[in-house]
């Protein structure tokens, strides 16, 4: 193999590819805009709905209001509720979302409270779980009733001549000793490798299919095979370009993600934790990239080898579908809590890289695992690359009728 020829093939394919809008979009634009759109957009939207729901008074029904005149008065005075006249089909109305919730007081509710002793009087809250507005109405109801309950308890305690502290004999304090890096690492560390792996694969997908099956489809494969570059040089040039796009896509997605975290942290970290802040060392991020490198080689070589078997771009898409799945499932598995890196898992492609990245981003440096993951992934990558090179030597693959 001749480096000069590999470079010629590489440059040719690169020039060709940059004129293709689909590639440019998939490789550069999509990973760049996806994170801000997803995190900020969704956050905005949810906030909007929440605010709107909060502003409008929730429609509720009070059953047995005569048993609890004081609470009934407080509900009416709070301004948070619109109290509808009683109807027998209130449960149905909640289901139909015409009514948000209903409160039912047991007979003699406040009387029993004032008397004290005996069985505690009950009140029942009716609502519709998973319906945001219904749950919010119940939360407001609960808050109001909770305050009322506290007042009653305090009144009783005072009535017995006890100090207010009698209610809280022990004070619990929580103190977090984990560094901020550890906390965000464990939380974000699980998600970031997943994104990098998916984008690595996505970045490689289109060029891998276009440079092999697409070439067959356009009928340019024969002319390239008849030129003065060897098949080895041809496959290496193509493979290297696929690898480049894959890595560029991954880097861009990471940059975009970090930028989103930096400029809109609350939005990006939603669901991760409120007290979140970004604390990754550059070293950890670079190490993650070193780990991803052989994985990107594995993806690029596998996709090239498989798409070459297809006769058209469309056929290649159906062949690469299962590959996508095979990569995404272990990448997701690493997000699951409780899965920890061990020597056996360090041999499973994709999962191993994503697990070791999780560790790296949380600040630890498990050198033995790092070595094992790197070597095993490199080994798989070498095999895939070897298969890709062999595929280019096989007439029945190149000229499938």
């Amino acid at each position, binding site marked *: 193999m001749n480096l000069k020829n590999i470079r*010629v093939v590489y440059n040719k394919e690169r020039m060709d590819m940059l004129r293709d809008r689909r590639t440019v979009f998939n490789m550069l634009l999509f990973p760049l805009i996806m994170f801000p759109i997803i995190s900020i957009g969704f956050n905005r939207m949810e906030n909007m709905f929440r605010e709107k729901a909060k502003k409008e008074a929730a429609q509720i029904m009070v059953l047995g209001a005569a048993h609890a005149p004081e609470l009934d008065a407080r509900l009416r005075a709070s301004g948070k509720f619109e109290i509808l006249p009683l109807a027998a089909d209130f449960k149905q109305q909640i289901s139909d979302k015409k009514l948000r919730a209903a409160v039912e007081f047991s007979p003699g509710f406040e009387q029993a409270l004032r008397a004290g002793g005996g069985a505690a009087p009950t009140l029942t809250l009716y609502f519709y779980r998973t319906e945001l507005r219904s749950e919010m109405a119940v939360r407001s109801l609960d808050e109001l009733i909770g305050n009322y309950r506290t007042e009653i308890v305090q009144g009783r305690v005072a009535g017995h001549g006890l100090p207010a502290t009698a209610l809280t004999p022990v004070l619990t304090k929580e103190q977090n000793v984990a560094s901020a890096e550890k906390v965000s690492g464990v939380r974000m560390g699980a998600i970031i490798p997943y994104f990098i792996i998916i984008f690595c694969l996505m970045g490689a997908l289109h060029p891998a299919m276009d440079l092999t099956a697409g070439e067959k489809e*356009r*009928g340019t494969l024969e002319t390239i095979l008849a030129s003065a570059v060897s098949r080895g040089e041809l496959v290496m040039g193509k493979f290297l370009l696929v690898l480049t796009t894959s890595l560029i896509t991954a880097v861009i997605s990471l940059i975009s993600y970090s930028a989103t975290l930096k400029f809109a942290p609350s939005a990006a970290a939603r669901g991760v934790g409120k007290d979140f802040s970004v604390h990754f060392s550059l070293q950890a991020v670079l190490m993650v990239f070193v780990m991803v490198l052989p994985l990107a080689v594995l993806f690029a070589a596998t996709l090239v080898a498989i798409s070459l078997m297809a006769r058209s771009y469309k056929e290649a898409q159906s062949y690469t579908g299962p590959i996508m799945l095979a990569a995404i499932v272990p990448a997701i598995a690493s997000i699951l809590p409780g899965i920890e890196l061990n020597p056996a898992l360090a041999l499973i492609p994709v999962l191993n890289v994503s697990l070791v990245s999780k560790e790296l981003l949380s600040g630890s440096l498990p050198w033995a695992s790092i070595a094992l993951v790197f070597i095993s992934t490199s080994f798989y990558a070498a095999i895939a690359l070897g298969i890709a090179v062999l595929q280019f030597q096989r007439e029945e693959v190149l000229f499938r009728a």
Partner: protein
Amino acid sequence: MPDDPLISVRDLSKHFRTFKRREGVWGAIRNLVKRDYQAVHAVDRVTFDIQRGDMVGYIGPNGAGKSTTIKMLTGILVPTGGEIHSNGFVPWEQRRQYVKTIGVVFGQRTQLWWDIAVVESFKLLRKIYDVSQRDYDERMELFNHVLKLKDYLDTPVRKLSLGERMRCDLAAALLHNPPILFLDEPTIGLDVVAKDHIRQFLKEINQRYRTTVLLTTHDLDDIEELCKRIMIIDHGRLLYDGPLALLKQKLLRTKQVKFVVKDSEQAARLPALESDGLKIEPVDHLTYRIVFDRTKISVADLLRHILAEVEVRDLLIEDEPIEEIVKRIYAGEALKEVSA
């Protein structure tokens, strides 16, 4: 014996294994489980020599094995059996050095970049083939002169017409001035003017550089214009290899006139034509065909004859299709003596 041949092919064979598909839904399911393969002899023990400076036509019906032969001659495919020595190389073994001495054009494909200006492709090929800037400039000047490339050198390939693209492809294949040029259907799909351009150019480089040309074609006019020698292949077997003149004398005697008469009233008058031993075959509604032997009646005479009898709306004179010629070779017409 003259010089050693530039290209020497001995008992060349290529067998493919193709997968036999069963019919219907049940067949499709069985295909998944058990596959039956069938050996196809795309090229079967073909032997020929080509001398330096020759222009040889290689013809045959679709699927006869023309393209497979070209692919083996260019080193893309490895033969199942037999030998090729071309310009001192065994194509598939020393492919990289070898292809620097050949040019290849596949008529329905292009080696030019689809979305990029033509000149960029030339620059790339210059690098791949290590052509010096001086040689490159010199050759580009010749191509500009003969092929009139200048006007669209900066146009992306996708915007070129088929004829323009073929000219560019030819120039691309000859950029490194190879002594051998393989052309697979170079005039397919081109109009008459474009075909003529290509033929003139091929003549020019053949005379100027003594470039050896092997071209496959469907179009007998290509052969008549360019080649003195012709090889006919069908079902992988070489049926004829010899001078075009001889074949013409023996086999290419017939042409056909296809014509459309004005209306059914005119059609009714057709039998009058048949008196002179001409046979009229109906092709379509109001469309008829006469196959004639041009050694017996000239085209001009025949047309005069037809036009005197009936009113014709449209008319087309064609060579007999290659498929018909091949059929007649099989029928044993005068070939034995020719190929012997």
